[in-house]
């Protein structure tokens, strides 16, 4: 893949909150259209990385380039699906309203909704299997359905790069399937996708590349390379248990005791 132009370049990036640095000197390149799993223990900086990539957190050092241009030159090509708790689900908007928000930037903040916008929203709703309750209030939805509303909105944004924070955590099977199906559709549309997950099996089986984080970059590459024992020990430390037959088990349910 080295001959394809890199579409997302992260160079020596350090980022954090205030004076505190969460991620130190990150450098990696994601090729166009790749599907990357971002893994690491709790608090390793996965969400922080995503927030830096969409420009929610100012960089303390380093540079991020998308299609060869710095982050601020883009506004509509990165879509971010945050963890569900970040918005107020009792807000008086319908499912369709939320998905339509994904079009606001492209349609212009003072323009009316065009026929094209409506068609794209309709298509996104159908694709995520939530077309039948598009007129429902978002407060009526289950957790998985809420997630699919976010996914549909990200689709409506027509992004080049899609970032998803823990989309497989705490959702029903239908939503997991819908999310995986979406990833396949995105691959066809050549959308680069970065997804954080706790599920190492899923990461190894469904993704082209893995990014192993623990406050800094431990490993980046194809799953087989990344999932080596020494990498896992470095990332997970005492949460990692090596069985006699060489199988590594990550106990990720309890945060590490520092």
């Amino acid at each position, binding site marked *: 893949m080295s001959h394809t132009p890199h579409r997302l370049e992260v160079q020596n990036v350090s980022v954090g909150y205030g004076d505190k640095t969460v991620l130190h000197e990150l450098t990696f390149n994601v090729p166009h259209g790749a599907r990357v799993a971002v893994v690491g223990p709790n608090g390793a900086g996965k969400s922080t990385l995503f927030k830096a990539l*969409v*420009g*929610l957190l100012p960089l303390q050092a380093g540079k991020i380039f998308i299609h060869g241009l710095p982050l*601020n030159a883009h506004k509509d090509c990165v879509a971010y699906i945050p963890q569900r708790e*970040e*918005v107020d689900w009792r*807000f008086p908007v319908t499912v369709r309203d939320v998905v339509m928000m994904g079009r606001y930037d492209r349609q212009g*903040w003072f323009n009316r909704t065009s026929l094209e916008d409506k068609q794209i929203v309709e298509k996104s709703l159908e694709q995520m299997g939530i077309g039948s309750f598009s007129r429902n209030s978002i407060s009526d939805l289950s957790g998985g359905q809420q997630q699919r509303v976010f996914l549909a909105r990200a689709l409506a944004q027509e992004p080049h790069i899609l970032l998803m924070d823990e989309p497989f955590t705490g959702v029903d099977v239908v939503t997991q399937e819908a999310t995986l199906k979406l990833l396949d559709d995105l691959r066809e549309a050549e959308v680069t996708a970065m997804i954080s997950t706790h599920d190492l099996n899923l990461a190894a089986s469904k993704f082209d590349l893995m990014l192993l984080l623990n406050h800094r970059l431990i490993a980046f590459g194809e799953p087989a390379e990344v999932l080596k024992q020494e990498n896992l020990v470095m990332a997970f430390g005492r949460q990692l248990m090596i069985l006699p037959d060489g199988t590594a088990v990550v106990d990720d349910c309890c945060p590490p005791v520092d």
Partner: protein
Amino acid sequence: MNWLVQPFAYEFMQRGILASVIVGILCAVMGTYVVLRGMAFLGDALAHAILPGIAIAYLLNGSLLVGALIAAIFIALIIGLFSRQGTVKEDTAIGILFAAALSLGIALISSIKTYAVDLSHILFGNVLGVSITDLWLTAGLGLLILLTVVLLYKPFLVISFDPVLAATMRLPAELLRNLMLVLLALTVVVSLQTVGVGLAAAMLVTPAATAYLITRRLTSMMVISAVFGALSSIIGLYLSYYLNIVSGSAIVLTATLFFVLAFLFNSRQGVLRRKINT
């Protein structure tokens, strides 16, 4: 039907009703954001914090509305500055400013001889004292506020519902938040005449909260809230006229009655409605 028309025989009642309806609608529309963004305390604080501006205008024999206007915008921006710095928690900052401004306002007013009457008008409104100039100013400001809310519907919706999306779409969130504070301040100033600083917060919160119980879309919440706001103003003024009670209180109590009815009987989660159906 004579009792319906009778109050309108007086010109000051006509002006009073017009001003009240404008204020009812304005407060109700801005109130949707106050309710959804959890700014009720802020609205109350803003209302009290403009007291010094009014007092100074009164002492200088200037227009109370202009004095309040300057004070309100000043206070709104200071609160925005305080909460952005993050050194003091926002509600603490508001609490300090609010109490200080209120004290300063009352101190200034207490230096006036007839202060008891004036203070009660400022605190609870004097709808019968609305002059032609006041009415024009109210209508002009009202139009300006409503126009801004309509024009900035999409950005305001996104920064209120999903600040993260707003940031990824590079919306100038801080500017929009400050603008919202200024609009809120203007609304409070306009409501001074009819319900006074003491009850402005109620007009901001109650009709919007009533609408929130009934609808599930922001646009209809604004419209329903505006209808309740306007109705409360009209019914409240009739009550005030016939029962001889203070207009501000009558308006707020009417609005509260609507809220209680919606709370008990709304089709979504009404308490009594559920009992009757089971």
